[in-house]
């Protein structure tokens, strides 16, 4: 019979020798392995004092981006919600009123935008579906909570701060093609 792995062994019921029966060498061998681990590099990280280094394209908590002028980019088009395999995203749209042009980029915006972090599988499909570059996944991780409803993140948790210093840089998440396309001022939405 051909084995699927090279590590499988055929079990035999052969009689053990005297040295094997006293188990002492086997115990010593085990202790030696344990002792050897004391001098190896530690694989655990002292969280929360130390944080693990994440990749720039790690898929963690979402952010709703604002544009350069601090207006919300999301127009509540619903493509993230329809792309979401876990059906975690819900939204309610509203119409921008005159005088709110500094708050919202387009004539329609998301009045309520919720992501159920319990359902989210962090696949990044919402990010890919978004036509407005409004939603991105970030390096930040979603913390656990004691109450389930606290894990339904609304705009308070997701929206990026207006303050330019606190903005979240997502340029490393975008492909070179996208960044190149954004330089093309021929298209109106790049102007």
């Amino acid at each position, binding site marked *: 019979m051909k084995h699927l792995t090279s590590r499988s062994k055929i079990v035999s019921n052969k009689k053990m020798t005297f040295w094997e029966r006293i188990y002492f060498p086997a115990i010593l061998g085990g202790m030696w392995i344990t002792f050897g681990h004391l001098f190896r590099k530690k694989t655990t990280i002292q969280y929360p004092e130390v944080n693990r280094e994440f990749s720039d394209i790690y898929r963690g908590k979402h952010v709703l981006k604002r544009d350069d002028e601090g207006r919300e980019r999301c127009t509540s*088009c619903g493509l993230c919600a329809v792309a979401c395999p876990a059906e975690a995203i819900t939204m309610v749209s509203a119409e921008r009123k005159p005088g709110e042009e500094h708050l919202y980029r387009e004539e329609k915006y998301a009045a309520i935008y919720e992501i159920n972090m319990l359902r989210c599988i962090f696949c990044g499909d919402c990010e890919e579906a978004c036509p*407005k570059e409004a939603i991105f996944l970030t390096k930040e991780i979603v913390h656990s909570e004691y109450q389930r409803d606290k894990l339904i993140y609304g705009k308070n948790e997701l929206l990026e701060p207006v303050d330019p210093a606190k903005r979240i840089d997502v340029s490393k998440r975008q492909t070179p093609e996208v960044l190149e396309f954004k330089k093309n001022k021929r298209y109106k939405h790049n102007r």
Partner: protein
Amino acid sequence: MLKVTIDNISIEVEEGTTILNAARMIGGKVVPPAMCYYSKLKGSGGKCRTCLVKVSHSSAKDPRPMGKLVASCSTPVQDGMVVQNLTSPEVIETRKGIVEFLLLNHPLDCPVCDQAGECDLQDLSFGFGMEETATEEERREFPMIDIGEKIKLHMNRCILCYRCVYTADQLTEKRLHGVLYRGDVSEIGTFIQHAVTNDFSGNMIDVCPVGALTDKTFRFKSRVWFLNPMNAHRDCPACSGKVTAWMFGNEIYRITGRKDRYGELEEFICNECRFEKKDINDWVIEGPRHIRRQSVISANHYEEMKKQSLIDPIAGTMESLT
């Protein structure tokens, strides 16, 4: 009876049938797309040029091909005619150009537009269009107008198919809107924002192939793919009362007419049904409507399917799933 062959499929049709209607009798993929032709509206068609097809044999008597591509919605068939739609690369190439022309002035605001997800122009550009535009010019821009209390006109999005004008002409007694100016500056307008108040004026919304005319009572309420289209009916003194109710849970978000597979209304409905009756108690809900498998509205909607209908006997495609 005249014999006509479209994309290698033959059918016998009556005299006076257009190529487009003959193709619709065959069904499936051979049907050319149409943006302006509407079978229920007399005189419609011939404007958008999306339905252009190649006629490689004019008739049995005169087998020469027609000199250029013809609009299938307004060309009657002749006996022995051979038509190429998708089998002709020339037609595909031309259609690509037509889509580009239709999109010349059409804004890229699908994320905002209420029609997105059920828009003929979206389907068409997805099917035949290019990813890029070749033009650098600014698009025409108009302010949004309310025509009547319940209808919003985004002239930016209009492709000047004239369907709404024919609807108003043929369905209502006094048309209150029309096409103003000429050529590339022409626009749909009412006389100094005169209200369109006819009882059946709401059908303009359903007839519009793009999002130029939209329902104000549904404006930005939801996206169509979040809603469940249900067949519903009520006793209406003015119309047949047979509608599609777009529901979310037990709430009715909007009412439209029932559309067939070519996006045309089966029956026109009155404004009272369309705009006023948003309560579930006003309607008798018959059951969920069949949604095309290819449509984004079918996302997360499941329905029972009969096995026999899986494969189209004529076209041999999965098209009858639509």
